[in-house]
């Protein structure tokens, strides 16, 4: 047998398999979504109904908004663990503004964003100025803000008609326009707008470019004259602002402040951001990928619930998806 032809054949095969592998890593996430949708649609025809698809989009909105924040912290090679607590805090602030202080919708939202801005600044201070590793700094902030939110609300919850901490009666009502933010179609529009704005910001502006450059190689960025500390601070501030926005929509959705209401969003948001790394061959944190990651998690969750998998087992599946996403990100890096 002709050895040359054999080896040639082999290299062609190898080439073919690397192309296939590249295609899979680029579009694997979207393929998985399609496969899952097809599978659920065949086993349960009601899955594919427009009303259910809308439910899925609505259910991932808050996760997606928070996850785009994490995505920004990831661009500078950082990580923000405190987003869940920040969402809870924003929920408490905005509801207290309506119920306790009888604010209108706009001042209430600004009040919540202002309060959480301080948290973002604190994160940036701990990480950039005091040089605490990001994971540990935001871990401490996770607990601090959880505690602050509970202390502020006197235990965790506020709702219309509930007396203040000092026992006085409240007459404040949650603004009706504000309430509509948390339901379709507005909640979905907000999500898509956030993803679009962050996507444009990261990919088409100078600041987005610098965030990626800082994350790619801090020292080279610094020696190119980029004010790296400023951009790292910006990343943590934006991350907390988006987490706060997630908390505000959450408040509108549930109409009250609840104990640790935002805590459950951390894990799926992290998963979405990491799943998003590879989408479209970006190979880096990106807003569109994060949306796709959230869709994947949402479809999986919705489908499994419809298949009567008990809710308390869902975390097993979501955790596995996160592990898989992390594996696909880090395994290739070696």
């Amino acid at each position, binding site marked *: 047998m002709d050895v040359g032809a054999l080896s040639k054949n082999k290299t062609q095969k190898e080439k073919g398999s690397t192309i296939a592998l590249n295609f899979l890593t680029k579009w694997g996430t979207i393929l998985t979504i399609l496969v899952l949708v097809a599978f659920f649609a065949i086993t349960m025809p009601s899955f594919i109904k427009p009303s259910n698809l809308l439910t899925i989009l609505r259910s991932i909105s808050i996760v997606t908004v928070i996850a785009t924040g994490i995505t920004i912290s990831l661009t500078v090679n950082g990580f923000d663990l405190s987003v869940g607590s920040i969402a809870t805090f924003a929920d408490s602030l905005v509801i207290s503004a309506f119920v306790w202080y009888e604010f209108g919708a706009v001042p209430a939202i600004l009040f919540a964003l202002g309060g959480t801005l301080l948290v973002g600044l604190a994160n940036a201070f701990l990480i950039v100025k005091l040089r605490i590793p990001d994971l540990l700094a935001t871990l401490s902030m996770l607990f601090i803000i959880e505690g602050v939110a509970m202390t502020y609300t006197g235990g965790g919850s506020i709702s219309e008609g509930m007396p203040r901490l000092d026992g006085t009666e409240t007459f404040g009502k949650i603004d009706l326009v504000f309430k509509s933010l948390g339901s379709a179609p507005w909640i979905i529009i907000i999500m898509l707008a956030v993803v679009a704005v962050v996507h444009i910001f990261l990919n088409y502006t100078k600041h987005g470019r610098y965030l990626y450059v800082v994350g790619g190689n801090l020292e080279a*960025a610094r020696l190119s*004259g980029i004010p790296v500390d400023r951009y790292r601070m910006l990343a943590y501030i934006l991350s907390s602002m988006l987490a706060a926005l997630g908390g505000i929509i959450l408040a509108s959705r549930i109409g009250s402040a609840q104990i640790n209401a935002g805590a459950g969003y951390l894990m799926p948001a992290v998963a979405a951001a990491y799943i998003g790394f590879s989408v479209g061959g970006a190979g880096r944190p990106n807003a569109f990928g994060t949306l796709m990651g959230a869709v994947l998690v949402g479809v999986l969750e919705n489908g499994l619930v419809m298949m009567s998998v008990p809710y308390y087992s869902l975390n097993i599946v979501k955790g596995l998806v996160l592990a898989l996403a992390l594996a696909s990100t880090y395994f290739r890096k070696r």
Partner: protein
Amino acid sequence: MTNIAIEFPGVKALSGVDFEVETGAIHALIGANGAGKSTLMKILAGAYDHYSGEIMIDGKQVQIRTPRAAKQLGIEIVYQEVDTALVPYLSIAENIMLDVMVNRMGRRHFVRWGEVHQSARKVLERMGVKLDTRELVQNLTLAQKQMVLIARALAEDARFLVLDEPTAPLSISETQDLFRLMKDLAYNHNVGVVFISHRLPEIFEICERVTILRDGQVVIHSPVSNVRPLQVIELMLGHRFDETYPKTKVEIGEKIFEVNNLSADNGAVQNASLYVRAGEIVGVAGLVGAGKTELSKALFGALPAKSGETYLKGKKISVRTPFEAVQHGLALVPEERRKEGVLVEEPVYINLSAASLSVFCAALDFVRGGAERASARKVIGDLGIKTPSEYQKVAYLSGGNQQKVAVGKWLITDAEIYIFDEPTKGVDVGAKHEIFELIGRLVAAGKGVIYASCELAEIMGITDRTYVMYDHAIVKELVTAETNEAEILFYSTGGK
């Protein structure tokens, strides 16, 4: 050691090297950068298993193919980077006894702490060093850490001790302490000490014999008393293969950049003053570790400065961060190209615009991608960067082309002062030539260039004037046309 030779892919690192050490004496091993000193010592340490030649100890032929074999023969090496060999959060005793504890514990699983501390104390007493064995190594000074490493070697009953540039980080009094210990080890404990150093005065102070390496071969092996410092310098230099340096004739203009009394934290740069004129290439010569990189970074605001004033075109400017440096028109091409100079994971065009992105910004800081890539294509053409397109990842370019990218990003900023730190490190001859030509074009356009290099031939070949660094300070200013390599080397090895 007789007729030692070793090759690495494409390089003959050592050939026909004979080297001998007697116990009870101090030997100097010297040579210019890349002469093969480290390679020879690594063979002794058992780091390579593919050397050829013979190694004899006490007249018996031995094989040193693994680090363990070297240790069993009593050969111990204290490398320059002491921290890599120490465990910072363990005590002095544990660090001294580390090898013993790792290799001689046998089947025992519990540590006898009393014994460990006692043995460690004994070794330190023998060295005449007063240190509490319970102190953690992370709290020690560099000199004390060296002592701990030497103590570890002695705990292993070393018969031969190799010290690789041990005095570089030490103060004068610490150096004297080390010398006392070296003499004590050699004369009272019959250890053969090999002392590798760039500092000629030290070699003449304490060594009996000297071996000089050049281009992987021994050029002389003789008692120190038979040679003179200038002779040593000539032997180190020899006549290496000639390279040509394209030096364009440029009219030198006014002083455009001046720095007075620049000092960086921790003595990384000490009281450096220098100036650059328009169209002038100013060299910064010095051996590896003399502080050239630190000076380059301090000039650029990348190392925190303790004191110093910077003037650009007669105006005092503040250069506390690289950001400020770039705003004022300074540019740095750093030594660690892949770590600091380029973004290897990014395409060429993003690298080329990294220092000048604002130039390509429209309203709201949107990047005009077309303009950005067009300018990248122009730089690629101007510098002859070999890349399929501006979209190629920099990681896939050759070293020389990566260096051109690192330079190219400053051309768009239109910087006034270019600082090059070892720009030819790891690039091939052709690319070197192109880099020299590029520097020539910069000065022809009236820019000022600071060129730091340990390659004396390059300093001689392309600079107009040169500062010599020794021990983190500028010790001499020379006009290139009126000096020679020997004189530069004389000052960079501590001559006065």
